[in-house]
């Protein structure tokens, strides 16, 4: 994770177009690897033989029914979390604002856990409930950010978010104590994972992801203007308050959707925009574009590692993203000058 400093000096000289092509190639390579490698007995050799036309029903099932869906879901989750992180950082004007760190994912997970205990069947209600929870989490965190003093200090916002996450985590534990039988089902909502998710889940969240991306496309230009300051943005004919609320809604839609299919996955929303900014420079529009390939890259890479380290079992994806993400957080905080957005 030492890419950014290196990136800012030499890589930025390459044109964004070349960089984008490189990233997309890398994404395709990682997606292919994701089809080839798993915790089971079907290794790269058998999987490649299958892709080149061999008849192997076991391999066909594992590659197309298990690995292909989780690869697609990983791509969707990576895009959603990366973009949500970039949006939240832009609107909070804080490079540490991350859906996982600030309790937005925790809000979504808590809402789902609560719904499960109250008797909702997991499959039907999950997505709207997760999105509602994410929205509440988002609003709580950003209203904390508006307290005098806190908003100007990125680290204090993270502290407020950590306190909020801690509160939600303890409430989720309370639910576990209240209904221990639900514990196994809820444990999934404490640390996210891509294992065993079905394409149906992805299709169920696609509409809200599409809505969010349309809204993001519409507000990207005003959002860039907002980076110049509220007065400048108003002067250019934008409505800062409206934009902010639209961004919050988008973040809630995206994080809620990602959490509903994969559970809370921490730090993707921090690392991805961080790397994207190193490639793209300060312009939020370009950063958002770069988040699209970088998010899936990170999620898929972490997912592939999660499959092989403890085979024949799997590590939860959330554990690995936290392992990659925590050093980045420390690096950002320790940087001599905390970048302001």
């Amino acid at each position, binding site marked *: 994770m030492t890419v950014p400093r290196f990136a800012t000096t030499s890589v930025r000289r390459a044109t964004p177009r070349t960089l984008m092509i490189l990233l997309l190639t890398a994404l395709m390579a990682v997606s292919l690897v994701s089809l080839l490698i798993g915790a089971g007995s079907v290794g790269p050799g058998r999987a490649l033989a299958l892709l080149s036309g061999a008849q192997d029903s076991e391999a066909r099932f594992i590659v197309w029914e298990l*690995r292909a869906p989780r690869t697609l879901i990983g791509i969707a989750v990576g895009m959603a979390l990366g973009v949500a992180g970039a949006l939240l950082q832009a609107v909070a004007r804080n490079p540490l604002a991350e859906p996982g760190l600030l309790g937005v994912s925790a809000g979504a997970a808590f809402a789902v856990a609560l719904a499960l205990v109250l008797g909702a069947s997991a499959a039907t209600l999950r997505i709207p409930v997760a999105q509602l929870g994410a929205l509440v989490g988002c609003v709580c965190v950003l209203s904390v950010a508006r307290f005098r003093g806190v908003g100007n200090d990125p680290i204090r916002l993270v502290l407020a978010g950590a306190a909020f996450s801690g509160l939600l985590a303890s409430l989720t534990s309370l639910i576990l104590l209240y209904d221990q039988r639900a514990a196994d089902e809820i444990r999934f909502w404490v640390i996210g994972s891509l294992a065993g998710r079905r394409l149906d889940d992805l299709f169920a969240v696609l509409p809200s992801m599409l809505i969010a991306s349309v809204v993001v496309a519409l507000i990207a230009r005003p959002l860039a203007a907002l980076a110049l300051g509220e007065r400048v943005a108003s002067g250019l004919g934008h409505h800062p308050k409206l934009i902010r609320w639209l961004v919050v809604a988008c973040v809630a839609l995206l994080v809620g959707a990602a959490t509903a299919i994969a559970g809370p996955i921490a730090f993707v929303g921090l690392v991805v925009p961080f790397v994207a900014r190193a490639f793209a420079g300060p312009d939020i529009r370009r950063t958002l574009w770069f988040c699209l390939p970088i998010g899936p890259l990170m999620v898929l890479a972490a997912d592939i590692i999660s499959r092989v380290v403890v085979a024949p079992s799997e590590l939860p994806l959330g554990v690995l993203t936290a392992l990659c993400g925590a050093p980045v957080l420390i690096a950002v905080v320790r940087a001599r000058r905390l970048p302001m957005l």
Partner: protein
Amino acid sequence: MRVKTTLFKTRSMSAIFIKSGCLGMLCMLLSALVAGTAQARTLETAFGDVDIEGTPERVVTLYEGALDAAVAAGVTPLGAVTTRGGDNVAGYIEAHLGENLLAIMGVVREINIEAVLAQQPDLILAPAQLSDEQYQLLSRIAPTVVPLTQPLASDNWKDEARLYGEALNRQAAIAEAIEAVEDRAAEVAEALEKADVGGSTFLVRWMPGGPMVMSENLFAAGLLAQVGLDVQDGGLIGERGVHSDVLSLENLSQVDGDWLFLATLNEDGQAAVDAAKQSSAFTRLNVVQQDHVVPVDGQLWTSANGPLAAQAILDDIEAALLP
């Protein structure tokens, strides 16, 4: 108690009549001998020898196996710990308790010492894995019987039940209950053989991410083996583990035997099977397509043990496997 009073009396007597001191000693020895054959016994426990006299009446069980053994021996404890994942004792034992409601002493890993104290027990039956600190506290309340820790084996329950039975002074009742289990198992085994039912068997718990394979050394797995099924755990479990980690869906074929017992802590076992069937990795297994998946109550199958649990499990096996 009788021994102590005798001792006290003889001492005061011997202080006055030195000559009759010898007689007093003899008296004491005799009474101790009589009490020894009838009442007092020394139990070999994990925390050394424990002396117990008479037939305890206020009994607290801090382990599901102890509760089972006590009820099988005809003793209704005052208090017990909850079943794993539940907020009361296991359903199968409630049926034996009838109207009697037991006070809850917490969960087996987190015993509520104050609740134990409130019952003023004269005997505490504790699990083999009781910690030293807890033993120190509990043994001040009442004699505390902790079975010797043994490596996980499917017939540990018999030794444990015998120890608890001895503590309760109901050795014969426990021996009878264990024998009844052996007889019943032999009966079921014979019936299964006649019906030509058998083959490789896995006992798993279904988690949202996939199955956890339960050890072939588990209590219930031992009973499955005893009735003639070939219980396996695929070598997925370490030396001391009770179950494997959640298996990757890519490795489900490793639990594809002739029979699959699917344990769940939820009341509705069928719901767990339905949840599992949402995964195409599960439905393509041979054992599922042959409809040889048996949903079982995880409270009974993966949490409880003892003679009554054994009978209930054998009933389940019979109901599921015999036409």
